[in-house]
């Protein structure tokens, strides 16, 4: 939720698609999946894991997603998808950040209000 929000907010910085260095292996797969990623609502959906996924499962999911969306293997996608995948992984692979994120999306049954919700934790790694 918060992830997609702030990503849209970046519209002031134009999307820097890296020039494709080679022809895409399969356009169909990339197109199909990239729309799926954009529609994704939660970090769990970005990585395509269950909310109950274990740490090794999240790691494995990140790797397999990287193999499909990293600009080295899918230059047509331009790297934006991988950035999103990496951000999701960065949050979900860190137990503290994941717990905080779970709280913010109300996964534990009690949605938290207040400053926690408005902060874009999973995208802000620079401070």
């Amino acid at each position, binding site marked *: 939720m918060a992830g997609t929000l*702030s990503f849209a*907010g*970046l*519209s*002031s*910085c*134009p999307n*820097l698609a*890296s020039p494709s*260095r*080679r*022809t895409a*292996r399969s356009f169909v797969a990339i197109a199909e999946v990239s729309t799926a990623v954009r529609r994704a609502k939660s970090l769990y959906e970005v990585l395509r894991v269950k909310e109950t996924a274990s740490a*090794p499962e999240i*790691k*494995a999911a990140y*790797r*397999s997603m*990287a*193999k499909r969306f*990293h*600009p*080295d*293997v899918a*230059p047509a996608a331009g*790297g934006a998808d*991988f*950035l999103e995948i*990496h951000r999701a992984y960065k949050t979900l692979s860190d137990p503290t950040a994941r717990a905080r994120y779970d709280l913010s999306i109300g996964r534990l049954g009690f949605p938290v209000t207040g*400053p926690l919700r*408005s*902060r874009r934790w999973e995208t*802000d*790694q*620079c*401070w």
Partner: protein
Amino acid sequence: MAEQFYTVASDSENTGDDKVQSAFPDLAIGIDIGTSKCSVAIWNGTQVELLRNPRNQKLMRSYVMFKDDSPSGGVSEELAHGEQEIFSGSAVFNMKRLVGRVDTDPVVHASKTLPFLVQTLDIGVRPFIAALVNNVWRSTTPEEVLAIFLVELKAMAEVQLKRRIRTAILTIPVSFSRFQKTRIERACAMAGLHVLRLMPEPTSVALLYAQQQQLSLHENMGSGIEKVALIFNMGAGYCDVAITATAGGVSQIKALLGCTMGGEDILQNVLCHLLPNFDTFCADHSMDKIKSMGLLRIATQDAIHKLSSQPSVIINVDLGDGNKVCKTLNRSEFEEVNSKLFEKCEKLIMQCLVDAKFTAEDINDVILVGGCSNILKIRSLVLGLCKRENLYEGIDLLEAAVCGAALEGAVASGISDPSGSLDLLTIQATPLSLGIRADGDGFAAIINRNTAIPARKDMLFTTAHDNQMEALIVVYEGEGKKVEENHLLGYFKITGIPPAPKGTAEISVCMDIDASDVLRVLAGVVLPGTQNAVSPFIEVRMPTLGDGHGWCAQALAKMYGSSLDLATIPKKLQQ
């Protein structure tokens, strides 16, 4: 540079090879330009193959001999130049240590003891480098020397592969600044090569390791267990450490660190030990001194190599003029002379473990590569720190980097292999932090080192003065807390900041590194509390600076003082 033509060998002994090669007309080659030795490799359709020169060498000495009109790197010559000839002042070598450095750099100063001419004026511009041709010092540049050498490597590969080579993956040291990388790209452009990727050497080794893990898993039908490897690479010029986590053919670089320190420093330490006035011995660059210094270098190099297999070695060189070096060098003496260097190696490894958030117990494999890995002390210290008995086997310490580069070349050229041996990916990380000048001379990092590439991060800054309308964005790379300790990459000005008390305007600075490691900096004024731009942002591709970039920072300070400064916003306020 004039177009070069090469005769294509007409006798096709290997028609099979031809087919494979023509199937990948644009396959990038992997090149490892070492400080001391170079190699070229390519994916041949089933595996990585190192190319050999006509003297059947896979590893070729990196130097360019300047003689009469045509400089030559000796790659494809029938007869190799002897070491004595290379140390005669006519050849320029160690280019990788000199490229992209200014004449105030200690590494450039240390190179003044080399037989060719390295002259410095200590004002922060590129050093003067020259080779002795017919008793005259003829000037050149590290980029030019690299380009001449690359042209020969390219020609050698074209003759063997019977096609034109346009693209290449080059390995570089971890500690190379972005400015140095542009110099390497420039040398490649001069040689007619398009650089697809510049890979830090240990990450190239990591890719090879990932492939080996992937293949062995296929054999054992194991699951995708994560394996963590520490890669220590020390060649003649540079020392690098990287930690990689590998599973399912994906190699994720967790941390990497490097410094300019290698076999050349070890050699100089020993030379200093043997000849206390070594630094000044060659200062006059007379022919006799150059010649005797060459002899001493050859003897010392040889002695250091021998110390890896024997406890002591005798060095006996007549330097002329009654000067003589006759000494027995034993291993403990050698280790004592280089003790500071070994300590620095230890620090690098420990810091890399901390950066990767691993302990020695987490490391599954210890991989040692580079020529200096033969030194017993280095082996024992790396194994000791990783609490290991044995090194990882199955990786050639001199060929690993170039093999990884060739694999990356195949992967980046879009080649897939039915057996799955190219089903690989490296998730690279930034070796150095990137940020801007803020709060006076402070360095505010926006992308921290060891961030996965591609990366994109933004950070808000504010004005340092009341009613400040303009601000300078000065971009640096490095780990120092103060900007002067870091490399300046470029600068630009943001205008049209709405007049307001200091600390209220919001300036967003976004840094973007794409998969091919191109850095772009975007900055502009945003409405406080929102992400909305007041006016169009400015996007600048970095680095923008040429030589003498140290001067630019001084000129900016002289011209503007602190009037266009930026300040960081306290963390709590950055919502």
